């Protein structure tokens, strides 16, 4: 009765003690939260997006608070592969928790290069591939909203790394299922979704965008049930595992993703308000597994009873 339930899960060949990770860009490189969060208790740590070279990101202001969420335009500031490996990997290697590196690029070559660079770094469990970046060679259209371009990126990265590969899908597409299937076809080991939704916050007094970059990405509680729908659409058309994220604050939010077909989840924006959200979510999920007498958390995955109604 009181023995803790089986929460372990394997995603893209990465064994995790539980299915609750922290989302890229919302937990720094782990070390920032180490005083308050037991890194060892997390399913995995996904670090802030890294590209080959150090990147300055956007000018501030970079963040705006909105109803039930926030809009950010950090702009992928980061230390580059070398800076990350030197400054942060020693800390991250101290824990048994899998480290998933979120990578990005401005061109297909850059994507491939950064993936290859991480292939030889010790202590990295897998790569999450942020495809929601502008393709500087094609007029700045986001890779992630163009099926053909996204396929090229994933395929190039797949050929550059033997690490487990987890493309992270953009939500603002007409049919997320097609992107999910394409990712599987291109050799992804898992997919994660959703990234932020494009948003524009305007200050009506100055008549300017609040964020210096203009547009930003919307995250938080307000997008949660939209994200669950996307995960449900994606998970039904692929056989690789799905990692769900978007507005997880409570255990129930995480459970919704699992019921909708995700094998794991990531806590994002909530970390800023409550750094211990992932730990609280894990505890609540354990309780759920016990109360409902599931054999393991894996038995919850995809258990949504959608009824006779057609999708």
């Amino acid at each position, binding site marked *: 009765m009181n023995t803790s339930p089986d929460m372990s899960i394997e995603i893209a060949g990465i064994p995790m003690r539980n299915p609750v990770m922290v989302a890229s*860009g*919302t*937990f*720094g490189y782990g070390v*920032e*939260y180490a*005083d*308050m969060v037991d890194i060892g208790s997390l399913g995995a740590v996904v670090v*802030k997006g890294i590209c080959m070279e150090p990147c*300055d*990101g956007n*000018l*501030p*202001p*970079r*963040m705006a*608070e909105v*109803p*039930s*969420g*926030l809009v*950010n335009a*950090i702009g992928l*500031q980061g230390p580059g592969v070398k800076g990350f490996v030197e400054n942060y990997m020693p800390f991250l290697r101290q824990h048994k928790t899998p480290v998933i590196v979120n990578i990005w690029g401005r061109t297909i070559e850059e994507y491939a290069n950064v993936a290859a660079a991480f292939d030889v770094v010790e202590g990295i469990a897998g790569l999450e591939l942020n495809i929601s970046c502008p393709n500087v060679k094609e007029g700045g259209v986001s890779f992630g909203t163009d099926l053909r371009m996204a396929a090229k990126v994933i395929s190039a990265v797949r050929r550059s790394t033997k690490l487990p590969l987890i493309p992270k899908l953009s939500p603002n597409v007409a049919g997320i299922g097609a992107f999910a299937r394409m990712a599987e076809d291109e050799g992804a080991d898992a997919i994660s979704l959703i990234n932020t939704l494009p948003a524009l916050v305007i200050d009506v007094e100055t008549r300017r965008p609040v964020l*210096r970059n203009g547009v930003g990405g919307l995250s*938080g*509680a*307000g997008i949660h049930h939209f994200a669950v729908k996307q995960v449900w659409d994606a998970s039904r058309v692929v056989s690789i595992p799905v990692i769900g994220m978007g507005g997880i*604050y*409570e255990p129930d939010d995480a459970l919704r993703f699992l019921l909708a077909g995700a094998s794991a989840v990531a806590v994002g*924006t*909530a*970390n*800023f*308000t*409550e*750094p*211990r959200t992932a730990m609280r979510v894990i505890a609540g999920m354990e309780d759920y597994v016990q109360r409902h007498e599931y054999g393991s958390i894996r038995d919850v995955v995809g258990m949504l009873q959608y009824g006779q109604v057609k999708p």
Partner: protein
Amino acid sequence: MQVETGIVQEHFDIGSGYRRLTLSAPTVCPQVKPGQFIHLRVPGLGESLLRRPFSIYRAEAGAISVLYKQVGKGTRELAFLPVGGYADFIGPLGNGFPLPHPENCIPVLVAGGYGVAPLSLLARNMDLKGIVFVGGRTAEDLLCLEDFKEMGWALEVTTEDGSAGLKGRVTDALDAWLSKGQKAIVYACGPDGMLEAIDKRLLQHELPGWLSLDKHMGCGVGACLACVQRVHTEDGGTRWKRCCCDGPIFAAGEIDWEFGKDAS
């Protein structure tokens, strides 16, 4: 750095539109350095509101006090928090003012608005006494003047409309004092414009000093990269620092005030 849930011990108006909030903080209180802040979760605003940063005004007897003004959603809601209620905060955050204060320097404090709060704590933790410049738009904007008087500091007050002290800006009074050419170190906290003006004067007079900078914050602990400020590097370049953990205190001459200005 910890998450701590404090009980409200005091919560009252201190005039000039400001309120003082005192929270029990047995764990965080002993760790506080002047210039640090707490990242407060405003109760009653639901899950999704970001925390709000407030400079630590007092850290004594296992409690922490902050001074705040009702300016928006969070602080307006905060004002309802009753004595005996709970609020949770992360702290102490930020680098704080470097201590100890260098010898043979007169400490000069320059404050605008709630900038007096961390400077008042700094003054309390110093053995030396110096001079403090407090500026505001009108007499209404000035607070904590008594603190410095009680501690025996010299006090120079300026208001833009002349309703209290000298008519003018805090930098006018500072200029007059600096022109005497005394060996001083300056600690300043206030709006960006004020800090930039002070930084320029420190450069001119080749004086050391520390500026406490307030940027909008997300996480407060260095994870989100929302609060960045461009600074000069030793090799003549520039780079970002995070106000929440690399700051909020920056050395005089460190901040690159021009970066990004042209593009706006």
